[in-house]
């Protein structure tokens, strides 16, 4: 796992940097205005940013797409193959679902089915290991890990209560 160093820049935004295996540093400044700066650090001096490239949010998005080696779905598929007998399912909370505005704890999914809700994807953002007081909203995608039977039981609970 790559370690991401997060630094607040008061009045500007946030800065994230990572150190590569070869010892180079690269980072991104997220301005409050939506602008992104791509940072390449000096080879000899880790304190010095040698190159700062401003990107609009569209450009930053395009660059991120190009750089992303695999999407979250593919990663989950990989995980699934590693542990036989377990399946991962992504279940959307459809508008009108009984859990649309209720919490994860209310579903009592693990007690009732044995399957676990390991993450929730909301508007492209992933919430890892949500707690029992995590509140669903419509169009959340719930990631469930369990036996095939358990996972479909969770899908049934989320759809019909």
């Amino acid at each position, binding site marked *: 796992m790559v370690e991401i160093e997060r*630094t*607040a*820049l*008061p*009045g*500007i935004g946030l*800065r994230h940097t990572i150190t590569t295996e070869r010892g180079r540093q690269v*980072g991104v*400044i997220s301005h*409050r*205005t939506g602008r992104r*700066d791509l*940072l390449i*650090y000096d080879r000899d*001096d*880790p*304190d*010095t*940013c040698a*190159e*700062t490239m401003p990107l609009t949010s569209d450009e930053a998005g395009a660059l991120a797409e190009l750089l992303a080696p695999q999407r979250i779905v593919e990663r989950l598929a990989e995980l699934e193959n590693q542990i036989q007998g377990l399946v991962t399912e992504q279940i959307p909370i459809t508008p009108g679902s009984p859990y649309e505005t209720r919490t994860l704890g209310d579903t009592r999914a693990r007690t009732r089915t044995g399957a676990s809700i390991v993450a929730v994807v909301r508007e492209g953002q992933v919430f890892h290991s949500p707690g029992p007081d995590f509140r669903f909203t419509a169009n959340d995608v719930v990631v469930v890990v369990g036996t095939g039977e358990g996972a479909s039981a969770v899908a049934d609970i989320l759809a019909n209560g």
Partner: protein
Amino acid sequence: MHPALLLIELGAVVLGLGLLSALAVRVGISPIPLYLLAGLAFGHGGLLPLDTSEEFIGVGAEIGVVLLLFTLGLEYTPDELVANLRHTAPVGLLDLALNAAPGAMLALWLGWGPVGALVLGGVTYISSSGIVAKLLGDLGWLGNREAPVVLSLLVFEDLAMAVYLPILTTVLAGVGVYTGAVTMAGAITAVAVVLYVALRHGRLVQGFLAGPRVGADAESGQNDEVLLLKVLGLVLLVAGIAQQLQVSAAVGAFLVGIAVSGPLAESARQLLSPLRDLFAAAFFVFFGLQIDPATLWPVAGYAVLLAAAGVLTKFATGHLAARRAGIGRFGRARAGAALVPRGEFNIVIAGLAVAAGLDTELGALAGAYVLILAMAGPLIARAVEPLLRARRRAVPADVMPAR
């Protein structure tokens, strides 16, 4: 009052400022010193005294201070301020002590008394967050490891202003110890209440300013006109009330800025920045207007001395702060250089003193001090990296001190 004459004078002044601003952009310095020079030229004893528009520029200057502080407050969220205060306090206090000392000592030595020392200490202390933040962006230094150290110090200084300005206003008003203490307590309570409201009930403020969302505006988010008038009105109102309570209009505006955060702050900033630029320019010109150029020469020597001390003390501050954060030689030097520019708030402080009728020499000295450092600061920062690289090449790598 001749409307035609007023428009002609005002138009000529604003156009002149526009040309100066263009020059500043070209040379790569802050326009503030040029505005001050323009004010000197237009003022009493200057080249082209303004008669008709001075009153208007005076009112504009008041609004300029309020908007400067308001947009500064917008830059920060309450959480940021609280979190920052915890870990920057030691360095921040060192910054205060090191940089206020030269001004305070010179004022005492010149016989301006404790009030003069309080004023001049404030003038030499605070860095210009506007110039410094812009400088960091322009030079591509935001990515550098020392950037958060520099920015945190600026935040601390701005917060220190929120405490300092009410003290200064009270002292300048010359009220007794009892009234002074009551005013101070009021000021500190006001700061605490605003921070509390902003932290816990920020949504109420946002809701009032952003609403109502009806018709087409509901989809686009908000109506620019409504937001502009509401925000400007609220800021001026709070600033005025704060002034009436002797808390200082500037601090009132700063606190409103802090209370407004999130997406609304972004919209408010975009809407009010052009107004801020206009009225802030009026403020610098007005400060220049009040200084008779003839009074500059007697204090020029002191101003140069004070500026030299100001460069050294800020350099030391940045150096120590960066070293405390475990940053190497280059970063330490850059942090020191970045903090050197002084600008808007030094003039705000001096402006309060001049308005209160303190020694006119003090205003001239503060003006000259800011003139020097607002121009020299960015140039020093630009020069520091090439100088360091040249030195690095001259010194063999194995002699470099280990980090």
